[in-house]
């Protein structure tokens, strides 16, 4: 029940918050978590368990209460123990089947538990005929919350942050560490997952004002230090290489903060671990620290009449805290025979609380429906064995468990810390920390408050030194623990079971034992078979007990058994937070706006957007494409080729460099001329093509394919480093705009804009010139990709628009027409020019493409030469040829498509790589791979259409259009 205000509580009592759970209205305060508000309202059943749908209440209040998950609108799996309460929340429990959380019909699954032993689903349901049916049933029962398909994409920003020392965890040791590092001059950030600093210092008090005062003093120091930044309500979700930690906010839509620190102090504390006894999952059985949190943070008396099951001093403190909250503590039951905290014991006795030593709760007695605790059955406990014969039943309304801790070492594991099992504290502690990583407090095996402060100061000073602040001090002696805060065997092997080890997955003691019996006696295998630790809490409350059980049943030590790997995320992180705003870059050429205004239909080419064709009213796509092609064939057309890779190389060895990376000769290329260029990889596979233009003896400008640009530049840069030739290589791809002005009338159009001599003699085919076009400095290449007289004109990107406009205006009289990628593909196919990636694949060599003429094997070296030399001597597997289709009507219902197969005697013998209907030639033309025996013109091959029908094609030696290359001699 909610108490009148408790000193230093986290609530703002002035601000009431109305919300509902399972349709019933409730009230909480600002500062409440969902779970604390519900508990304060007397709600005990917060959720249902995953497998048996047993009623569950609170366990940790430390962000691993995964049996108390909520659905709020479209958001599934909200953790009630961590999510702040908000006005108007309409919460339901996840994973219930009719009847709501109170009367979940899924509870009948619990009755079947005898039939559902560990790994039961591996042992049945697998007949081939019935499995699909069983799978449907399984899929109805699995999963937790529901996703809502109407949820919009959330786009939140991310931020980058830097500090000298990052302290993960704002408990006593973390605060001491932060103060020490700050004192040395380091810029410190403390990240604390709760709403306020203090950690266990806030609630592990044992009603001791002095302990509270120690924390106050630390908080004041932090407050006073101007080089400490505090980030509450954030958790470090992972520890990535080079001290790179994403800090994630609990609040929805808060930015993900990516922190790079010079030193990181992991002061993440420890997860309190449950005891394993019969019915240890009833609502009302919780970790002692959860009850203390309820009291000190949220001003709640968690239970009226709790019993404390303990094996450490913390349990005695919890009993005192409960007494302070006004509860009538039923008893303290101590697993141990003796202990060292006599002063605490005296204080407990002074409160008239009975203490039973060498005893354990062996069973919690359920109230109606298993929704509460009405008593605890307590028996003698010695040498890890409970006596079941003589049980004392102690009435109580809940059981607080304080039997041990597991270091919250997830981040340390992710940082690749080597851990060791420390028998003195019965937990894993760091043995060897990587450089720049520090640990202190409970995660370091230090539990006593005074020792934690010393340990924190030690870690803080060391972390500051690593970050370059302060001088390396003397080694500090951290006092050893007087007794272990953790019991090595807080486990009751109850013959009637229901003694849960993992609450996420309803794994009982016998499930673990049986899995071990079946041979899963490796900790990782045991986890995978029993599913213990695989649920949303990722074993935070179960891994340690599983490990202890495995060790005991196999006669090993915990050190020999070892732990499972703790991977990111520390706590789950929403996909929206990780995705951030999302970055899907799209590249546009400087002419993008012109294309859009002309009605471009876009086509994605990698990140680039290119016009496929320009729409025309009342015309189909094909009609538009054909009209564009006809304009080029009959007059003049203009296409944006600015997406081509554009590289420049200068220097004494420039020609030599190109000789090595391309298969042809470039050393003998005349200044002012260009040459086709084919690039291979070391296997002789063709990977790119383009044109190399020689601007001066030591200066070349060359193009790559659109999709290859980035990769080619990266590879050439690598080779440049490798070869150490005297060259400079620059990538101009985005810096230059480029167009191709093509068609018989292209010269007439261009001549109006330039003083260059455009005569065939002065500027021949494959010639290169620099000059001005419409007053813009330009590089001009006479190319013929589309099979007509034409010029590729490259200008600085900022002038791209002006160049386009000038050409369009100058060509108006000739009926100049912009054309898109589709028309270009058609035109080049008519000319028999290949497109790398379409007419080649991951194994194609220049030899397969009949490019022997380009490959200069006599050169001393080029990439791929050795492979090609070997391949040259082997029988070829395939050759690219042209195909025509004598029996295919132009209006055929089914036409061959790219990648339809060539079939010979029932076997795959090749495929069509490019095909189109040529309006110029008035028939279908194609490029295809066929077997080398079938390359003679007129040879017949069979094509299998997508429908399965066969179509006969005839081999044709391209080009289909202008085989004599006469068009390069014809210009107006």
């Amino acid at each position, binding site marked *: 029940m909610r108490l009148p205000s408790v000193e230093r509580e986290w609530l703002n009592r002035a601000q009431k918050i109305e919300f509902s759970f399972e349709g019933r209205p409730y009230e909480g305060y600002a500062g409440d978590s969902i779970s604390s508000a519900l508990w304060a309202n007397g709600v005990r059943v917060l959720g249902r368990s995953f497998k048996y749908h047993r009623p569950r209440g609170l366990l940790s209040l430390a962000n691993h209460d995964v049996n108390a998950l909520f659905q709020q609108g479209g958001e*599934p799996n909200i953790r009630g123990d961590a999510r702040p309460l908000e006005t108007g929340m309409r919460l339901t429990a996840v994973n219930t089947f009719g009847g709501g959380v109170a009367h979940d019909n899924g509870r009948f699954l619990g009755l079947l538990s005898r039939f559902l032993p560990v790994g039961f689903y591996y042992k049945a349901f697998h007949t081939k005929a019935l499995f699909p049916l069983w799978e449907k049933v399984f899929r109805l029962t699995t999963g937790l919350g529901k996703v809502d398909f109407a949820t919009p994409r959330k786009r939140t920003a991310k931020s980058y942050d830097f500090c000298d020392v990052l302290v993960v965890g704002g408990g006593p040791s973390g605060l001491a560490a932060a103060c020490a590092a700050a004192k040395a001059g380091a810029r410190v950030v403390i990240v604390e997952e709760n709403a306020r600093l203090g950690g266990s210092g806030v609630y592990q008090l044992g009603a001791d004002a002095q302990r509270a005062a120690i924390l106050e003093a630390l908080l004041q120091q932090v407050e006073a230090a101007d080089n400490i930044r505090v980030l509450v309500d954030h958790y470090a979700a992972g520890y990535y290489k080079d001290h790179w930690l994403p800090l994630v906010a609990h609040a929805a839509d808060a930015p993900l903060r990516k922190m790079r620190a010079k030193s990181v102090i992991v002061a993440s504390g420890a997860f309190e671990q449950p005891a394993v006894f019969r019915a240890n999952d009833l609502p009302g059985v919780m970790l002692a620290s959860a009850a203390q949190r309820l009291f000190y943070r949220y001003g709640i008396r968690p239970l009226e009449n709790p019993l404390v099951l303990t094996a450490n001093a913390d349990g005695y403190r919890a009993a005192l805290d409960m007494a302070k909250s006004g509860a009538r503590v039923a008893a303290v039951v101590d697993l141990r025979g003796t202990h060292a905290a006599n002063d605490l014991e005296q204080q407990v006795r002074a409160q008239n609380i009975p203490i039973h030593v060498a005893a354990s709760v062996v069973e919690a007695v359920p109230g109606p429906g298993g929704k509460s605790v009405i008593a605890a059955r307590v028996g003698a406990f010695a040498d890890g064995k409970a006596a079941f014969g003589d049980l004392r039943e102690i009435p109580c309304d809940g059981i607080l468990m304080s039997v041990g801790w597991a270091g919250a070492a997830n981040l340390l594991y992710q940082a690749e810390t080597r851990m060791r099992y420390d028998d003195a504290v019965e937990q894993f502690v760091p043995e060897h920390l990587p450089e720049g990583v520090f640990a202190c407090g409970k995660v370091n095996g230090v539990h006593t408050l005074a020792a934690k402060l010393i340990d924190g100061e030690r870690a803080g000073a060391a972390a500051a030194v690593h970050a370059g602040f302060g001088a390396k001090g003397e080694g500090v002696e951290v006092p050893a623990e007087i007794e272990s805060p953790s019991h090595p065997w807080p486990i009751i092997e109850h013959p009637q079971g229901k003694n849960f080890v993992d609450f996420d997955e309803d794994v009982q003691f016998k499930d673990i034992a049986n899995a071990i019996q079946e041979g899963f006696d490796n900790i990782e295998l045991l986890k995978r078979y029993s599913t213990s630790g695989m649920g949303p809490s990722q074993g935070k409350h179960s891994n340690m007990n599983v490990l202890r059980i495995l060790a005991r049943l196999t006669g090993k030590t915990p050190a020999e058994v070892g732990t499972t790997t703790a991977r990111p995320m520390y706590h789950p992180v929403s*996909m929206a937070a990780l995705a951030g705003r999302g970055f*899907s870059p799209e590249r546009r050429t400087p002419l993008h706006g012109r294309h859009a205004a002309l009605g471009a239909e876009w086509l994605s080419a990698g990140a680039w957007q290119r016009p496929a064709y320009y729409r025309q009213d009342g015309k189909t796509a094909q009609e538009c494409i054909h009209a564009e092609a006809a304009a080029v064939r009959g007059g003049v057309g203009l296409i944006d080729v600015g997406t081509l890779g554009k590289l420049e190389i200068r220097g004494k060895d420039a020609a030599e460099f190109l000789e090595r990376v391309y298969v042809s000769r470039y050393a003998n290329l005349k200044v002012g001329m260009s040459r086709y260029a084919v690039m291979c990889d070391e296997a002789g596979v063709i990977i790119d093509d383009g044109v190399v233009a020689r601007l001066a003896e030591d200066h070349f400008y060359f193009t790559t394919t659109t999709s290859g640009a980035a990769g080619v530049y990266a590879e050439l840069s690598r080779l440049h480093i490798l070869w150490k030739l005297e060259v400079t290589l620059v990538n101009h791809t985005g810096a230059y705009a480029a167009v191709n002005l093509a068609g018989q009338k292209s010269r007439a159009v261009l001549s109006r804009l330039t003083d260059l001599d455009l005569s065939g003699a002065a500027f021949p085919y494959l010639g290169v010139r620099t000059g001005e076009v419409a007053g813009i400095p330009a590089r001009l290449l006479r190319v013929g990709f589309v099979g007509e007289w034409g010029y590729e004109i490259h200008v600085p990107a900022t002038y791209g628009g002006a160049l386009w406009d000038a050409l369009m205006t100058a060509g108006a009289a000739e009926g100049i027409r912009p054309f898109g990628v589709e028309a270009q593909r058609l035109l080049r196919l008519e000319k028999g020019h290949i497109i790398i990636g379409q007419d080649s694949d991951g194994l194609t060599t220049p030899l397969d493409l009949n490019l022997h003429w380009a490959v200069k094997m006599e050169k001393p070296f080029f990439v791929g030469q050795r492979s090609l030399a070997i391949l040259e001597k082997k029988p070829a597997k395939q050759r690219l040829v042209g195909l025509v289709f004598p029996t295919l009507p132009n209006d055929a219902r089914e036409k061959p498509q790219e990648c339809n197969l060539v079939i010979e005697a029932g076997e795959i013998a090749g495929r069509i790589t490019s095909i189109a209907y040529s309006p110029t030639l008035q028939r279908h033309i194609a490029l295809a791979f066929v077997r080398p025996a079938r390359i003679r013109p007129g040879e017949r091959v069979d094509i299998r259409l997508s429908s399965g029908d066969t179509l006969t094609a005839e081999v044709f030696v391209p080009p289909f259009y202008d085989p004599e290359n006469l068009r390069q001699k014809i210009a107006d």
Partner: protein
Amino acid sequence: MPWRLLRFAFSKKHPEPRMFTRHEKLKPAYDVVIIGGGGHGLAAAYYLAREHGVTNVCVLEKGYIGGGNTGRNTTIIRSNYLTPEGVQFYDASLALWRDLSADFDLNLFYANRGHFTLAHTDASLRTMRWRAEVNKQYGVDSELVGPEAVKKAAPMIDLRCSGHAPILGALYHAPGSVARHDAVAWGYGRGADRRGVEIHQKTEVLGIETAGGKVTGVQTSRGHIATSKVLCAVAGFTPRILKMVEIPSPIYIHPLQAMVSEPVKPFLDPILVSGSLHVYISQSARGELVMGASLDPYEVHSTRSSLEFVEGLTAEMLNMFPFLSNVRVMRQWAGMADMTPDFAPIMGKTPLEGFYLDSGWGTWGFKATPIAGKTMAHTIAHDAPHPLITGFALDRFRNYALTGEKGAASVGH
């Protein structure tokens, strides 16, 4: 409720025997030593014992069985490959998969979900048509479908992918399935164990002894073994083992990462792969969304996770499924993919007599587990490559006879 489960309810003691016998010591000699207790190594042992009567076999595992890429992959099973060699090999695997649960008497949760490879560009549509046509040639159920078929199978998908990469179509492969990966290793392990194979976990191979171009023994962290036949089935550790026997290989190691969400109620039936967004997703029987992406872009021998991976993967996944914004990522992990230049495996004999290789499994190894085991068992038993794997021999790199599967890789590389 199947009757089999009744015996658990009515027996006092857990009625299941050990799946894997514990062997305190290694024997001094075995007929065959298999390095690597993953799915592939255990499957090879299983088929050696079951089909070839070779039972004096030991499987050496450095860690625990199934702890490598068998336990790290995203469990997608399909046979819609690009090369004739690949299609026939993986289709034979699929045939084994279908009967494997019955074979093992162990439920592998082999769930036939249907597999869509989404095309966002006309270039990828073209490659998919190629795959579909090759698949059909070998009787594999594979076809090019339009966006409406994708929408029908996964109605919640944003076909526009938030406007970045509209889905133009897909390669649909009806037999595409997922399975419980760990159980595959256990099933093969138990089956091999029952037939006399010894599985030795936490046993590391330190060296391989040879004499006169032949294998003679293996040095392990638990002692020496004499043997004339060694199978290396160690995925990401292949280069290290090959170094021991000085066999050069073109294998290079890239990390491959994946992640799962917290469980949510099942809503996604098919397996979806997007080559352009470089992501794939399926929903497990537990309700977790299992998601992966392309290889890490650098060579490194490490299984450490990276933040960049989850950032990139979630961003692309939300382009396709914006409504997953509130769903939380629970865990991420990494495996080491042993990549080959042509994206096909390296299997069979090697220049060293008695040393067999089952490697180069890159990102495509899990689905091949049964057939890799079966063909390697055959290859070892007959000292001659099984007909299905002749296209995957190590000497193909020397002979320029590559088996180009890059076009069939699930996501870009």
